Each structure stands twice: as C-alpha cells, then as structure tokens.
C-alpha cells in the first residue's frame, strides 16, 4: 500500500483487501480503516507511505495486553491446561513448551489427558522423551480428569516445577465434550488453589472467523488465559487474533513457527503487526 500517491478510494480498498485476506474479519477491518481515515483527516496527512507505521501502531495496540509471560505459581507446581479444537497443535506445543522449561532448569511433568484419540499417548510420549520430561499416562478410554489428578499428585511428590496437561481436541460446539473439559478444570482447581495457572487455547493460524467462536466458548467454559497461535510459519496470518484481543481481551502469549521442538516463540505484538503488512 506504500506505492499509492494519496489517500484515495483505491488506497483504502487495497488496505481493506490486505486486512480481510489476513483473516482480520470485517468488523476489525472497518475499525482499523476508520481509525486511519480519522488520523488522515485530523492530522491532514497526505503521504500514504506513513500509513504503514500508523496501522502497525494500531494493530500492536489492539494486541498488546501487557505481557506474554506465562504465569508462574507462587509455589510449584505451576499447572498449565492446554485446550483447543482438533488438530490445532496442542500436543506438539506441549512438547515445545516442556523443552523451553527444561532449558530453564525446570522439572516438567506431562499429563496425557487425551485418552480418546488413537496413539495420542504415544505421540506425547515421544515429545516427553525429546524434552526430557516425565509422562503420566493411563490406558485408552480412561477418565481424562483422573489423568490430570494423577499428574498433579506426581508433581507434588516428585517436586516438579511445571505440569503441562494435554487434552483431546474438541469442537467448541460439542456440549458434552466441553462439559468433559470443565470437569478436568474443576478437578485441577480442587487440587491446587489458583490452578490451572494458565489455560492456553491453541489456535491454528489458518483458522478463519470461527476462531472468535472458539475463543469465546472455550473461555466461557474453562477460563482461557492466553492463546498459542500455531503454524504461523505458513502463509496464513491468523488475523482473527485481533478480534479475539479487541472483543475478548485475550492475549496471544506464544507462537508456533514449525514442527521442531525449538519452533516456539514468545508473542510480540510489534513483530506480528509488522508481518501483517509485509
């Protein structure tokens, strides 16, 4: 958009296209375009080359919620519940996160609370091995809440610093599956005051407007505290996180940038905003 000569209709049409194509959605797109138009008018701007900086500022301010740091419990263990729809990258993200904690000298326990999907426990087992974390697993079909419970007991007795709880993917419209998730959260909360200390919603960057519904319903169900935006190494921009930030106040805390154990990074609103317009 920097090549336009002035802030004419073509300029704003092209800006609209950039934002919509990034999955920002119509509501936030109109809002951002509106804000830019207001600044152009108020500050009598004439050079569209300036638009980039203004837009990046606006986007970063929507996404900046203070800190991307994951919460740490006053006393160990810190309990982190990982949730989200099918295939979004939960299990892989837990492997990456476990590795990060391990690098920081923490003792990590992984809970295989996806007791439903074929080879879910085996998959997490490989990540546990790669990350140097311990795995708590029951047989297939076991009660996921029981696995979470056992993992917390194990964390206490073995003095672990962090418990990462993997759950089965579930579509937010499935009431019975959301009830199962609420039960897991209740069991965790009953065992440790203030737990889970983080409830991370893992969201695939290729997701369209359904992402807002995912964030809304998962938050309502289990009190999501942050988003992990995965698969940002693709061409999708994950723009739905703007609506999630603006309407629900939920921060993106981490981004997944690939399938390797090191492909996890803390979220930076500024970097994200810059990438949105590149």
């Amino acid at each position: 958009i920097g090549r336009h000569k002035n802030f004419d209709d073509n300029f704003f049409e092209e800006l609209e296209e950039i934002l919509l194509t990034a999955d920002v959605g119509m509501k936030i797109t109109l809002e951002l375009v509106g804000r830019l138009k207001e600044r152009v008018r108020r500050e009598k701007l004439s050079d569209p080359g300036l638009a980039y900086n203004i837009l990046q500022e606006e986007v970063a301010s929507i996404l900046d919620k203070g800190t991307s740091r994951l919460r740490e419990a006053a006393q160990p263990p810190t309990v982190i519940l990982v949730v989200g729809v099918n295939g979004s990258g939960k299990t892989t993200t837990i492997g990456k996160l476990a590795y990060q904690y391990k690098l920081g000298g923490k003792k990590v326990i992984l809970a295989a609370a996806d007791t439903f999907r074929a080879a879910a426990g085996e998959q997490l087992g490989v990540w546990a091995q790669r990350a140097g974390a311990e795995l708590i697993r029951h047989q297939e079909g076991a009660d996921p809440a029981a696995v979470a419970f056992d993992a917390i007991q194990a964390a206490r007795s073995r003095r672990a610093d962090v418990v990462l709880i993997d759950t089965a993917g579930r579509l937010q419209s499935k009431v019975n599956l959301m009830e199962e998730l609420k039960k897991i959260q209740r069991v965790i909360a009953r065992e440790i005051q203030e737990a889970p200390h983080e409830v991370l919603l893992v969201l695939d960057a290729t997701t369209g407007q359904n992402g807002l519904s995912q964030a809304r319903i998962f938050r309502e169900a289990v009190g999501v505290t942050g988003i992990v935006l995965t698969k940002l190494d693709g061409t999708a921009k994950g723009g739905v996180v703007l609506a999630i930030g603006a309407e629900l106040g939920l921060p993106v805390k981490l981004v997944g940038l690939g399938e390797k154990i090191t492909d996890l990074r803390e979220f930076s609103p500024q970097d994200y905003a810059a990438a949105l317009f590149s």
Partner: protein
Amino acid sequence: SLAERLQATFQKLRGRGKLSEADVTAALREIRLALLEADVNFKVVKDFVDKVKSRAIGQEVLQSLTPAQQVIKIVYEELTALMGGSQSKLIFASHPPTVILMVGLQGSGKTTTAAKLARFLTRQGHRPLLAAADIYRPAAIKQLQVLGGQLGVPVFSLGDEVKPPAIAGAAVEHARSQGRDVVIVDTAGRLHIDAEMMAELAEIKHAVSPHEILLVLDAMTGQDAVRVADEFHRQLNLTGVILTKLDGDARGGAALTVRAVTGCPIKFIGVGEKAGALEAFHPERLAARILG
C-alpha cells in the same frame, strides 16, 4: 441471518415487479458480508457477487417471493451450481489396485479420513490397504495402525526410516500380491510453501501414479485456503477435495474458494472423529450453510 438482513435492506427500497439495479446492489452488499463472514476468499467473493449481479438485474420477482427472497434464491442457486455439478464419485482403476493419495496441511484430518475411506470402501465390497507414508510425525504410523486395527483393514508400513515414495511403491506391490484392490496412502501434513515436502509428494505421485489425489481441508480454514488449494493443485493436479470437521459450526466458505480456484469436486465431508463419520457431499446443503 442473511434472509433477515436482506429483508431489512429491501424494506427501504421501492423495487417491485422486476429487480432494479438499486435493489440488487443493496442486496449484494449484504451477500458479500455474509460470504466474507463465512470465510469465502475475498477475490472469490468479488467474482461471485459480480456473477450474481448480472443474473439478478432485471429478473422478474416471482409472485410468491419478496425481492429479498428472489435475490437469495438466485444466490443459493448460483452457489449450489458452483459447488456441485461434477464427478464426485471416487475414480477407480480399470486394473486394480486403485491408488488414493491423501494430501494437505498439518492437522487437517488426513490420517483419520484415510481410515474413514477404508471403512467406506470395505462396506462397498472393496479390500483396501492403508499405507503409512508419514515417517515424520511422532506416532503417526502407530495412529494409522490403531485405526486400521479397529476396522480390520491391513496397514502397510516399512517403519520411519524408509522414504515415503519407496513406502508407497512397496505398498502398491504388496496390495497386488495380497489381492487388495485399493491402496490409501496417508502422508505427513505439510505446508504448500515447503518446497522439499511438496517435492516429496511429487515423487510419491511419480512412484505410484495415483488415480485420486485428495486434498484434505479443514472446514474452518480462512482466507489462506486460496493459496493452499492453488499451490497443491498446481504442483500435484488434485482430483478431489475432502472437507473435514463439518460437524462443528464453521460456515465452511473455504469449500467455495477451493472449488472456484481448482475446479476440483468435493467428494466427501468429514462429520466427526469416528471411522463412520464420512458422508457424501451435498452442494445445496453446504450452500445453505455458507449463506448462514
């Protein structure tokens, strides 16, 4: 709903008898919004809206319909026509085995859908063989073996140290020797911009000449569907699409995008996690869902 919004739009207009340009332009604004909300690609929406506009202006409003309903009828028919109307049955080889190659982005549902297809084919009297050609994802082979085991469908694997093209080739040979008449090759999820991994798919294709190359696409995919579909189609020449996770509440606009961009038929839809959750694709149903 779109119907309600259009109704409100038309309250303001005088148009009766024939649809005027003003009527149609106002209605199309709402339709464009609905399609974008449903994740249909920006450019696909533009082309589609232009098409509807030329069809709608000057059209007689049927006695039984309001102008709003008349426009919706046109949109619904255009959407249905766009998404349907082509070979949505599986292509079988004249000499077995038929080879079906499953491709797509990470996490879209390929492995689960491969098993669903195996179950579908078994019930149709075929003897499918599942081939575990994902050697990267932790426990991917195990996942397919567990699913195959639950269905009584054999799973061919050479472990995770043999390259996928060789695995696929050996699977087809194995099928011939064992009288299995369909080979379903499960592959690793990959990005359309990962040159190395896309080249691997081209190698698998070269090794086994699949009769079907099916893009497995998540129904909640947003605007990126256009790039994914375009790239996979350009490099592999897809024969069909399977849209998964339609048991959720995503509108599924990516389906229209993929159809518009590749011209490929949607052959099946995934409507759940169990092996039986595979259904035939009905364009009019998806049209209604996309319109919301």
